[in-house]
């Protein structure tokens, strides 16, 4: 979070995302929101609360419970010149519209020989931690990062929650934004004038010498906490917020790993076939001769996310697991 002096205002991640959505609707007449319960109910996570009153039913559109239908409608609207911002309640449900995203949104530019583009933004809630059980708690952003033709974002900070949307909406191709559900209540202060941010680069959230911790989204804060504890133990960890999972910012990752010679990847997705696996492979491909230790991952246990609190906590990456992994790769 920025600590620059000029006019800081208190906010939450939820409010920051909402501020981004409001800006989009205010500045871009072609923009509209569409999704389940986003209007009268104010959104499953209350992100769009109050927006129906402000912008009216033409631009805040409640949809039937049919992901394939309304995401498909969004794709069509985008092709026809609108700037749809579609909310999918949780990424678990996005599998119902996976065909629309993968076979239509991601391919139209390619299959039309560049005649059509699909400037759609699809927001999805992701992640576990609120005892929503196995069908509402998964982290599938890594899967989507597999798909050429779309961009995948994971805003972890108030600034990114606020500023990624505008840039995403102005991208001529489909952009998926994954908002971790544990972040919505996160409070903090933000520059009153905060606005659009880039959606290309990873950012060093904490510089360090001994090990690179590569993470994104909800795991960023656990990782930063772990880094603070490790610092007290004499281990100086660098924390990188990936921000964009597709395309990955290889340059920032490699620069950090070449400096620290060690990498621990923290990813709330399952380990097998995950974005963490992709990052590890890229490090081996591009920075092998700079490595001092095996690349290590802290991922979610390979189980459906459990409902009981203690089991859910045990399944997810935690500060303690991150600290243990780091201590192992630095040999302490």
């Amino acid at each position, binding site marked *: 979070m920025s600590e620059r002096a000029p006019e800081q205002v208190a906010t939450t991640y939820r409010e920051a995302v909402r501020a981004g959505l409001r800006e989009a609707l205010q500045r871009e007449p072609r923009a509209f929101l569409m999704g389940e319960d986003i209007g009268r109910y104010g959104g499953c996570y209350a992100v769009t609360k109050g927006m129906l009153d402000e912008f009216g039913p033409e631009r805040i559109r409640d949809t039937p419970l049919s992901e394939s239908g309304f995401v498909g409608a969004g794709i069509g609207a985008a092709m026809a010149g609108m700037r749809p911002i579609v909310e999918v309640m949780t990424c678990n449900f996005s599998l119902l519209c996976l065909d629309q995203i993968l076979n239509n949104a991601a391919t139209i530019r390619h299959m039309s020989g560049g005649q059509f583009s699909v400037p759609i933004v699809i927001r999805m809630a992701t992640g576990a931690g609120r005892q929503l059980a196995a069908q509402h708690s998964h982290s599938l952003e890594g899967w989507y990062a597999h798909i050429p033709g779309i961009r995948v974002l994971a805003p972890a900070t108030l600034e990114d929650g606020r500023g990624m949307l505008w840039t995403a909406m102005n991208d001529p191709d489909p952009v998926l934004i994954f908002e971790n559900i544990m972040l919505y209540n996160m409070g903090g202060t933000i520059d009153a004038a905060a606005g659009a941010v880039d959606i290309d680069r990873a950012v060093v959230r904490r510089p360090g010498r001994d090990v690179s911790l590569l993470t994104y989204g909800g795991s960023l804060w656990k990782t930063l906490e772990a880094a603070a504890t490790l610092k007290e133990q004499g281990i100086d960890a660098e924390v990188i917020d990936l921000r964009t999972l597709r395309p990955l910012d290889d340059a920032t990752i490699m620069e950090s790993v070449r400096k620290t*010679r060690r990498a621990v990847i923290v990813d709330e997705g399952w380990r097998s076939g995950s974005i963490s696996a992709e990052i590890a492979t890229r490090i081996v491909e591009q920075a*092998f*001769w*700079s*490595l*001092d*230790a*095996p690349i290590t991952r802290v991922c979610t246990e390979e189980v459906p996310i459990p409902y009981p609190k203690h089991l859910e906590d045990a399944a997810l990456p935690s500060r303690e697991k991150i600290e243990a992994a780091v201590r*192992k*790769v*630095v*040999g302490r």
Partner: protein
Amino acid sequence: MGEFRMPSLGSDMEKGTLVEWLKKPGDTVRPGDVVAVIETEKGAIEIEAFEAGTFERSLVDIGQTVPVGTPIAVINGGVRPSAPIAAPAAAVPRQAASAPPMAPRIAGPVEGLKVSPAARKLAAERGIDVTQIRGSGPDGSIVFTDVESYAPGVKPTAQAPIPSAPSKEKRATPPDMGMRSIIAAATARSKREIPHYYLSHEVDITRALKWLAKTNTRRTPDERLLPAVLLLKALARALRKHPGFNGFYEENAFRLSDRIHIGVAIAIRGGGLVAPAIHDTDKLSLDDLMERLRDLVTRVRQGRFRSSEISDPTITLTSLGERGVDTVIPVIYPPQVAILGAGTPRKQPMIADGKVRVRDVITLSLAGDHRASDGHSGALFLVAWANLLQHPEEL
């Protein structure tokens, strides 16, 4: 058709950058002709052909950097593929010539030993045997900092004759870090592998300097001799009687060289130094020796010397000249087995014929490789050198 390859000018050289072609397509190439100038971490070096033929075409552009062993030109007409002169005596390993281009020369895994990729690469760059290192990483693995602290970036002393020279364009700038790491590697390897012993001897050179002054009085400046020439010639003569210091220690054995190529440590303006050889030092007259020395110093300071000169000194002399320091305790340049040093000539009281007199004195020193010789033979060698300096007219 012959492929002219990027030569290896030392076991620590991995690549070279093409600076200039001195032959163009159609030119006749004779053995010994300088074909190209390459920039290495040791400086700009002229590389020579040793087969006759016709320069057909270059395969590498100016400015391009290629690994050792990469074909850089085609020279036709030689019976065998033309190759650059490289280290006939120093026997620099040439295995790099067959290595695939761009493959880093990094040792494979050693059984039972965990060495991180970063550590392995650094060890290869510095010529360090990782089995000698204690690991501090996970599971006792050897990591980057273990190698780094095992062979820290040694600041070379003025005595360490390490081939290194900035290019003529870069004369005024400090030597680059690549050269520094080469110096670090060579001196660290020397100090790690070579059990040095040291001897020093104060020598009255009043007669030698008088003889020199008298000789120079009759000469115009361009014909005058420097004391270094006497040191060189006397050393070469001493080596004839003590051949056990002239040669190379390789593969656990000392091998005599039947020719005497004394390497002369020459400081580079702006930092660093090189020790190129004066070939067959023992066979040259003082005048010829002076001419060779003058030529060598001039070329080194212009950043140009020949591949054959830097690759095959059989022993090295480092002379501090008039720098005001009495004694030098030098570092042997592997695979050589000895290095001689000469401090600044000075006036000091000495006892001669039972009386204290002011004499011109120089401290000569020897660093010897204990695997190849012992202190006793070293002392005999050092004294033989000193005695030869007493009769300059016979040199």
